[in-house]
């Protein structure tokens, strides 16, 4: 008996010792500031990451030409100590700080930035956020045009090029094709992606559906236009390969002078220079490790320069540990040029994605900040003094499948939008006083004035609209599904909306949940009737909410298409292209008087600066007109704008509220007495 007990005791002891061996953290000193980061970062390579939680770490490790002031989030001098902007707003000259260094002492020069931004655009890397810097001359050509040429005219490993597919379409339909067939063809072939920004009038007409039927002659013309477009892109790509990063777009004039040339005056370009995709990366380290990997025959995908053993950084913090599913530890960098301004010494970021765990850790003093918590108990949490909230730059909406009945009829879509009582959802489910949404763009987007509301909550009017569309009392619609991705609060909202629609409009809607990946595949393939979605604005500008709805845009996913809307979005991207067409387009706009006045202001502007300013105002008005079309057509029904919230201990100072929900770690400090 005692032998047995001894045995059990021995196993127990071995188990404890084994566990102890896995405790690598036991010797670490406690951190000044600990927060719940919500998940494991995909990477810490500034060019690879795409998420907010990764941005928190990467922005602390690396510093771009500018960085966001923690209080205002406006760009202030970082690696660049100053800059000059040309009168036309198209050329920026940055003067790199002499003290800018990597943590291994290697200096950061203008060449570092030119190489980094070129790396961001490297086609073979597949960096998703490369488009952030496509405002730079030659960047898009360098990044994408080679792929466009391949899709248009080949060579492809298998399958048809677009030009071949078009020839086939023409052979099969000698009499031409109707608009619906053409839309399907464009969607299948993803033509939009590969001719984006084309100036060719034939292609432009084709993209807009050619106002109806496309005859055989036009299709033939289109084929040769596409071939020409491919040639043009091939030439531009070759040129960009030679010059981009060397003497065009972005290049170093000398070690401390970086020149950036833009396609068009871009008012928010300085903000882009503080965004993580534009951070510099250590060329000397990346190239050394790549050479070593090549020598040992390892896979290129195993790029690991950003792991703690390898990484060098230039930001206010350095990476001291990254233990997957346990924590990331940042320590103040002693080589940072402005290290005196950094008051936190050690930061721990926990990757906990379980909201219950996050809240437990926070409430028992294991973390000082948690942006996540179980939303089901928000009613109790919001009464606490350490609960912070403010309006966010996110809109929650339902997509309609505009390619099939009943939602191919704008009246039915509007009826649904008018029949939903948003306030009820906000009071009973989301509970944070979210502003109800009757349009797409959230409040507070700089100088942008959204169009006046075209409709509101009006069940009576909704029923009338539905009857006009041929479905009186919801008869003839049948049973529809409302798709959402698995999540408690999406579920509650979906079920509430379904019951409201049944009550107000009389047709049956079944709330259906799908796991995230399947849900995404379904919405991409337009296999739904109504589908939940949300959109987080990338920057403080209405364009980030509006440009995704162009015909067959990757994030459109509704099948909605509107020729004038597409044109307006294209004009907003470069106002100079609007002016020649103004005569023709302005009468089609809702507020044409205002538009005409703004156009006149641009043409009569005195001096380059005044013109840039007037053009910016005209641009915002074009976007306003686009949103007015959107609110009439409603390919999606907006429900509410988010309120961003988190729990922060009162002794954490330097924590400011912004609609963008960005809280730079560099600005935080701890009030030790309050703690």
């Amino acid at each position: 008996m005692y032998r047995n007990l001894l045995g059990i005791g021995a196993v127990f002891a071995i188990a404890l010792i084994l566990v102890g061996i896995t405790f690598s953290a036991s010797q670490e000193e406690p951190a000044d500031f600990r927060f719940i980061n919500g998940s494991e970062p995909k990477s810490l390579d500034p060019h690879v990451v795409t998420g907010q939680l990764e941005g928190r770490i990467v922005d602390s490790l690396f510093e771009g030409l500018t960085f966001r002031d923690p209080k205002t989030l406006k760009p202030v001098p970082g690696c660049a100590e100053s800059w000059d902007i040309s009168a036309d707003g198209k050329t920026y000259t940055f003067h790199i700080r002499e003290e800018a260094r990597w943590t291994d002492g290697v200096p950061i020069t203008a060449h570092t930035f030119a190489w980094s931004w070129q790396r961001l655009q490297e086609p073979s890397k597949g960096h998703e956020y490369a488009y952030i810097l496509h405002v730079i001359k030659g960047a898009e050509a360098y990044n994408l045009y080679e792929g466009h040429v391949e899709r248009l005219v080949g060579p492809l490993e298998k399958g048809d090029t677009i030009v071949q597919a078009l020839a086939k379409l023409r052979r099969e339909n000698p009499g031409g094709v109707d608009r619906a067939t053409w839309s399907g063809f464009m969607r299948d072939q993803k033509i939009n992606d590969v001719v984006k920004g084309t100036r060719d009038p034939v292609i432009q007409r084709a993209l807009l559906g050619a106002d109806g039927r496309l005859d055989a002659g036009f299709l033939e013309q289109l084929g040769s236009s596409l071939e020409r477009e491919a040639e043009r892109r091939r030439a531009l790509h070759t040129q960009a390969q030679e010059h981009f990063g060397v003497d065009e777009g972005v290049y170093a004039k000398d070690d401390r002078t970086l020149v950036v040339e833009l396609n068009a005056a871009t008012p928010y370009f300085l903000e882009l220079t503080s965004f993580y995709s534009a951070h510099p990366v250590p060329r000397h380290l990346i190239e050394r490790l790549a050479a070593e990997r090549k020598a040992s025959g390892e896979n290129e995908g195993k790029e690991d320069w950003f792991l703690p053993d390898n990484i060098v950084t230039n930001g206010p913090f350095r990476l001291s540990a990254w233990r997957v599913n346990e924590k990331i530890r940042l320590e103040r960098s002693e080589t940072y040029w402005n290290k005196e301004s950094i008051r936190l010494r050690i930061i721990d970021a926990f990757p906990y994605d379980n909201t219950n765990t996050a809240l437990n850790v926070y409430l028992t003093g294991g973390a000082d900040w948690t942006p996540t918590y179980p939303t089901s108990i928000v009613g109790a949490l919001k009464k606490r003094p350490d609960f912070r909230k403010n309006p966010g730059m996110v809109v929650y909406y339902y997509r309609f499948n505009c390619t099939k009945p009943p939602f191919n009829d704008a009246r039915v879509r509007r009826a649904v939008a008018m029949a939903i009582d948003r306030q009820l959802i906000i009071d009973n489910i989301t509970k944070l006083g979210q502003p109800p949404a009757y349009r797409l763009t959230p409040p507070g987007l700089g100088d942008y004035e959204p169009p006046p509301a075209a409709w509101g909550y009006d069940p009576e009017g909704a029923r009338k609209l539905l009857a006009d569309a041929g479905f009186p009392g919801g008869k003839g619609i049948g049973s529809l599904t409302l798709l959402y991705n698995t999540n408690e609060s999406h579920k509650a909202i979906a079920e509430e909306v379904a019951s409201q629609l049944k009550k107000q409009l009389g047709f049956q809607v079944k709330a259906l949940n799908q796991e995230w990946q399947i849900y995404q595949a379904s919405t991409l393939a337009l296999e739904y009737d109504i589908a939940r979605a949300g959109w987080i604005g990338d920057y403080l500008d209405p364009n980030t909410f509006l440009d995704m709805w162009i015909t067959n845009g990757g994030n459109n996913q509704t099948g909605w298409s509107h020729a004038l809307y597409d044109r307006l979005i294209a004009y907003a991207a470069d106002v100079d292209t609007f002016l020649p067409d103004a005569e023709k387009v302005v009468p089609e706009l809702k507020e044409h008087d205002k538009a005409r006045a703004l156009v006149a202001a641009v043409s009569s502007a005195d001096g380059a600066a005044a013109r840039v300013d007037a053009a910016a105002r005209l641009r915002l008005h074009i976007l306003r007109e686009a949103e007015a079309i959107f609110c009439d057509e409603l390919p999606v029904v907006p429900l509410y704008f988010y309120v961003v919230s988190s729990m922060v201990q009162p002794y954490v100072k330097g924590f400011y509220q912004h609609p963008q929900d960005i809280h730079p770690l560099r600005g935080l400090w701890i009030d030790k007495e309050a703690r």
Partner: protein
Amino acid sequence: MRGAVIVVGSIGAVFFLAMGLTVGLWEALVLLIGVAFISSMLWYPPHVMRIVGAALLAVFLFAFLQTIAGTVPGAVIAIVLAVLAWRFLPVRVHRRVGFMVPSMVMLIFVTTILMYMAPGSPFAQEKQTTQQALEAQAKKFKVEKTALAFFGTYMKGLLADGTMGLSVKVQGRTVEQLLMPALPVSMSLGLLALVIACFLGLVLGIRAGLKPNSFADYSSMGVAMIGISLPNFVIGAILLVIFSYSFQLLPVAGWGTYGHLILPAITLALPYAAYIARLARNGTIEVMQQDFVRTARAKGLSEQTVIVKHALKGAILPVVSFLGPATAGIFTGSFVVEKLFAVPGMGQWFVTGALGRDYSVVLGTAIIYFTIITLFNLLVDFAYAWLDPRVREEL
């Protein structure tokens, strides 16, 4: 005999056709060949089985050893060990190896097919990106377009480079670099939980089994029933409320001190303890009615000696057979417990890998789970032989 062949043959043909239609002809064919190869081993004469077993062992050992020792030394050690195995190991071990290695390959194959049948991709993002970016990433991470191509690339990586591929969701590390630090965390936590479960379960179960239908029985089994019925996130939450919130004795979550161990280990242990208690109770009741126990009592031995020396071994036999799969399960971690207590273990990779369509991670977890479960089943067989003389003859 001929009837049986026709029946089995036609079932196989229908299955093959169905597979061919749903997942593709080539996939079905590979699967068929794999199954045929594994089943054909049943008919191999011993000397052939020894050669096949040793060869498969060599391949398996090489894939494993080359990462530790390098390619050439790895190959040499693998061949030497395989020759030794061929010469000295009994044929039943060869049969086991002969079953295990091709089964693992088939497991990888079937898992790959299933992964590719599920909608989605490891590169899917809410914000759509360009086709070029997706293709460049797929190339970089060796995520092929079809299941068959992926299987080929993956097996090549496994055998030629000894790597389980790259994770897309946590980049910069190979799957083995991600899972290997997590495995000891789960194993040691699991071992601790297992010791607690065995101790609690056996005490409760044997106490109940010695006096069936008494208060001791009903109370123990009542506790066990609660342990089985309550999901472990509820048990965990109750423990948290008591020990962390009310008494503030233990940390709520995290990893790094012995205090972090206690709550997850207990949460993990309770359902297993409950199962063990029920098995031990039944085992005890059965054993106490056996002739040899009556003989022991008749010899005049004290009740304690009868139980410890004679009855206990028999009573825990059903527990031992449960412990095989249970240990494999508990050693590979629990998603719920690891998430609730923020333990950096294996369990969460099973779920996050599948949900994120992180193909290499899914395969990595499958391989590790398969290896551990086969290993523990083998250990159970040996334990059985040690505990029960009747089994020893058969093995």
